[in-house]
């Protein structure tokens, strides 16, 4: 494991050193170091299976036996800490250690089946490698091997082959120590020892895929990747996960133009060695239902057109719409793509009506983002979460909305960090973080924050305390104001954790009305001058601040725009979907740049195909603001990036918009960070909460999201769709088993799970099977909902 070095942070220099000799090499290592780590420092590799730097030592496999002077028997190097004057002999200098290791290897192979040719791990298997290095060339075991029926499902996604297991307990330790989902455990004893789950309780952890990756044999495999390919014919590319704002490093493996699997890549400062199942398994959307060629509307029908024709048509639409166009970027764009939209809007379309948010949003949020978040340097990081004395979560459920933040908070909580969540109830995720609940009905966040206990306030004032606010706060008037005020009064660090990977990217690229790249205010003369110089236009050609959010959508719905440029926007993701639908139906010309066919492309006048993350390179900014660049997986793709399309349209219009990733990175680099004055946020007062039962809701990690389509095994591990309410609320409304929720758009019926939570609140998932709140109810977070008993789920 690499030691985390934050820029500018003081690196703790260990002072408590002990002298130890390994294979005759004298060295000094910090007290408490494991012998296996100390040996690694001088390049001695001791065989191991159960040892993992991020898991507690267990010494289960015994493959790492070494000889220590003064100890009667060989010791496991992975559990033996160094001591002053210790003299260690590994297999290189000790016959005892070498024989012990060879003996253990022979025992491990006694019951291991010889099915390497059909095993998914074959070719990248630590057991294979170590059997080659320390194992016997020929077996002495002629008896029948122990067999089990194989494989069995421990979850819909994870398959277990018990014959191959070497009982290293890596998976069970991961589930218990890292993910906090101890649903798998070692059962039975002796030769019958096996990993298993409780009856009827599958291993439906959000992080179950990691167990496959850390399994040192092929005992755990995924249903998704089963027999898809062998490791030796895969080409690996380091990439970044495009699903959420956690910014995980990934390794994408492909074969002959098709991605076969994705693995978590080692990035100690961000995702350590983990990722979530969505990031690991949800990638088939990349190849299904794609737009392959430009489309142009002719006589009311979209037809395939050549690139020059489509570009000319789009350019014609935009020529006529200069000064009166709206731009919706979508929350999934890279920094480079969002930057191109930003330039296109300001420099070519001469409009500032641009927004990237496709969800619940408010002007208060836009003001907060411009004043506090946009372009701010990376100060609060995963590392700071780990060392924080207290982390206050406001309107965010990390396990569902930013899983790696959850893992880090859980690690922090295990290390003593106090986690406090302002929410309607303690979710299982909160419980795993050992979080304290500041109970608060949706919409009452402002009151809850102002009435925080003195105890929490004091803790927030301790240096290093962090307040994390999620995207749902946009649905609560005054929430962002209250959070920012709290951060100001206590001195705690304040971070905004969006859900989508492209939100922070778009914000910093200036894809929001009133903002230029890097958090520069559009109204600031110096900022305008700087940006105009880079864009090669005069500063007075930059537009005046325009509309964003609801104002933009309302203007569009009235049909007041001459043209709309829409990126990856799914209409149903908007709280105000009707407004965008009205705009699509109006006379306004729509140019869409999209990877997949959707409601927007169906209504657009010109559609351009755009590349998914495997077909382009780019950068995402994670919630920290840390750039997460990724390379192109498929270089011979038929599509280009959004920026490439925009650049080509601009070229037909005799304007210049940089379209290449290197060019845009160069421009952003030349702009540099903004050191001038930032916009000031306007305080918004809280609104009195409406009477009635209020709706708490958020998107679960595994739901009906479009980027999880075509993943049946993954979808089967999603949590069941239930409505949660307190016993009192249920009783007051006469609800026992099934509740029906009614909103302006319709009603849904869901099974009820009585949960200890704030009264008069009902929680339902936002976008799960049978519970698509925006579409089915026409309601959002914090809205009043009618609930009644009965109905059919």
């Amino acid at each position, binding site marked *: 494991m690499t030691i985390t070095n934050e820029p500018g942070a003081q690196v703790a220099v260990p002072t408590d050193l002990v002298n130890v000799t390994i294979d005759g090499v004298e060295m000094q290592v910090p007290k408490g170091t494991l012998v296996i780590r100390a040996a690694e420092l001088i390049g001695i590799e001791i065989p191991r299976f159960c040892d993992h730097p991020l898991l507690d030592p267990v010494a289960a496999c015994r493959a790492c036996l070494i000889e220590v002077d003064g100890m009667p028997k060989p010791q496991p190097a992975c559990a033996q800490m160094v001591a002053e004057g210790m003299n260690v002999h590994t297999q290189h200098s000790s016959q005892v250690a070498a024989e012990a290791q060879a003996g253990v290897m022979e025992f491990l192979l006694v019951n291991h089946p010889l099915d390497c040719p059909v095993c998914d791990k074959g070719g990248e298997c630590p057991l294979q490698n170590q059997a080659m290095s320390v194992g016997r060339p020929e077996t002495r075991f002629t008896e029948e091997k122990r067999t089990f029926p194989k494989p069995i499902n421990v979850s819909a996604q994870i398959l277990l082959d018990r014959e191959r297991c070497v009982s290293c307990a890596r998976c069970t330790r991961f589930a218990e120590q890292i993910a906090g989902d101890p649903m798998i455990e070692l059962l039975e004893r002796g030769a019958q020892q096996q990993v298993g789950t409780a009856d009827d309780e599958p291993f439906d952890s959000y992080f179950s895929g990691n167990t496959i990756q850390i399994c040192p044999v092929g005992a755990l495999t995924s249903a998704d990747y089963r027999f898809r390919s062998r490791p030796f014919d895969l080409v690996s590319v380091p990439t970044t996960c495009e699903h959420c704002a956690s910014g995980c490093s990934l390794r994408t493996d492909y074969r002959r*133009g098709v991605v076969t699997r994705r693995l978590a890549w080692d990035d100690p400062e961000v995702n350590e060695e983990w990722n979530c199942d969505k990031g690991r398994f949800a990638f088939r959307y990349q190849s299904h239902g794609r737009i392959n060629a430009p489309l142009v509307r002719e006589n009311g029908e979209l037809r395939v057109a050549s690139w020059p024709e489509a570009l000319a048509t789009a350019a014609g639409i935009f020529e006529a719409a200069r000064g009166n166009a709206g731009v919706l970027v979508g929350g999934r764009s890279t920094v480079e793509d969002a930057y191109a939209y930003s330039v296109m809007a300001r420099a070519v379309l001469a409009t500032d009506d641009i927004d990237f948010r496709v969800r619940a949003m408010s002007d208060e949020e836009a003001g907060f983002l411009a004043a506090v978040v946009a372009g701010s340097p990376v100060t609060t990081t995963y590392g700071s979460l780990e060392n924080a004395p207290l982390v206050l979560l406001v309107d965010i459920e990390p396990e569902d909305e930013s899983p790696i933040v959850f893992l880090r908070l859980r690690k922090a909580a295990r290390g003593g960090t106090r986690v406090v969540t302002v929410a309607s109830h303690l979710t299982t995720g909160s419980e795993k973080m050992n979080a304290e609940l500041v109970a608060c009905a949706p919409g009452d966040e402002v009151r809850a924050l102002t009435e925080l206990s003195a105890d929490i306030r004091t803790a927030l004032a301790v240096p290093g305390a962090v307040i994390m606010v999620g995207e749902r706060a946009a649905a609560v008037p005054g929430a962002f104001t209250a959070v920012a005020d709290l951060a100001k009064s206590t001195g705690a660090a304040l971070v905004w954790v969006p859900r989508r990977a492209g939100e922070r990217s778009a914000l910093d690229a200036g894809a929001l009305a009133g903002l230029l790249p890097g958090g520069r205010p559009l109204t600031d003369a110096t900022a305008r001058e700087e940006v105009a110089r880079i864009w090669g236009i005069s500063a007075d050609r930059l537009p005046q601040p325009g509309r964003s959010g609801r104002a933009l959508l309302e203007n569009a719905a009235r049909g007041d725009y001459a043209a709309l440029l829409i990126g990856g926007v799914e209409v149903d993701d908007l709280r105000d979907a009707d407004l965008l639908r009205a705009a699509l139906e109006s006379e306004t010309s729509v140019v869409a740049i999209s990877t997949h066919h959707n409601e927007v492309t169906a209504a657009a006048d010109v559609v351009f195909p755009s590349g998914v993350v495997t077909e382009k390179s780019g950068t995402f900014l994670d919630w920290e603001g840390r750039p997460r660049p990724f390379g192109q997986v498929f270089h011979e793709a038929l599509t280009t990036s959004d920026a490439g399309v925009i650049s080509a349209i601009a070229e037909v219009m005799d304007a210049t918009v940089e379209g290449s990733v290197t060019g845009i990175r160069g421009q952003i680099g030349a702009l540099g960070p903004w050191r001038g004055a930032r916009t000031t946020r306007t305080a918004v007062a809280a609104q009195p909460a409406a009477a009635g039962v209020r709706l708490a809701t958020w998107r679960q990690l595994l739901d009906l999201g479009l980027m999880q389509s075509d993943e049946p095994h993954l979808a089967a591990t999603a949590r069941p769709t239930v409505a949660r309410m307190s016993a009192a609320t249920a009783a007051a409304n006469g609800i026992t088993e099934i509740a029906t929720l009614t909103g302006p758009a319709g009603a849904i019926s869901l099974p009820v799970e009585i949960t200890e939570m704030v009264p008069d609140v009902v929680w339902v998932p936002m976008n799960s099977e049978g519970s698509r709140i925006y579409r089915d109810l026409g309601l959002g977070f914090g809205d009043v909902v009618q609930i009644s008993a009965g109905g059919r789920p």
Partner: protein
Amino acid sequence: MGLEEKLPSGVLLTSVEKVAGYARKGSLWPATFGLACCAIEMMATGGPRYDIARFGMEVFRASPRQADLMIVAGRVSQKMAPVLRQIYDQMPNPKWVLAMGVCASSGGMFNNYAIVQGVDHVVPVDIYLPGCPPRPEMLIDAILKLHDEIQDMKLGVNRRRQIAELEELALASPSTLEMKGLMR
């Protein structure tokens, strides 16, 4: 090529095609284009043991002007490609190309920057012969298969119609970019 090209549609052609085909296949003169190991087998084929004089092909011509068949025997380097094309261009019509061995056919095991990945990137190939290198029997088999094609070759308007049909087919086939997973 000659008189047959100037004739109006269909007249005479079917029997003339057969006669012309018979004459052409019976006097196919190869141009020497030995580039590597396959050339050794090609030379063996020309020798008395395999004796392609039996098929009227004993005269390997050093001058492309007198050759009808180019046997590309061996891997074609990027540097050799223009030379190969020039020789091909200097051969008079009608002419045929035989890609002998996997290197000439597809680059074979030399999937690298130096080797043309199939001589069909440079000249149109009439017959591909697998093997590394192919035995003389395999070369003779390929030549005989080519003879059959020459025998069935069309002339004049029929030929033009055939070419148009093949062009249609080629345009309708998917591009290499669209081929995923499988080898074609």
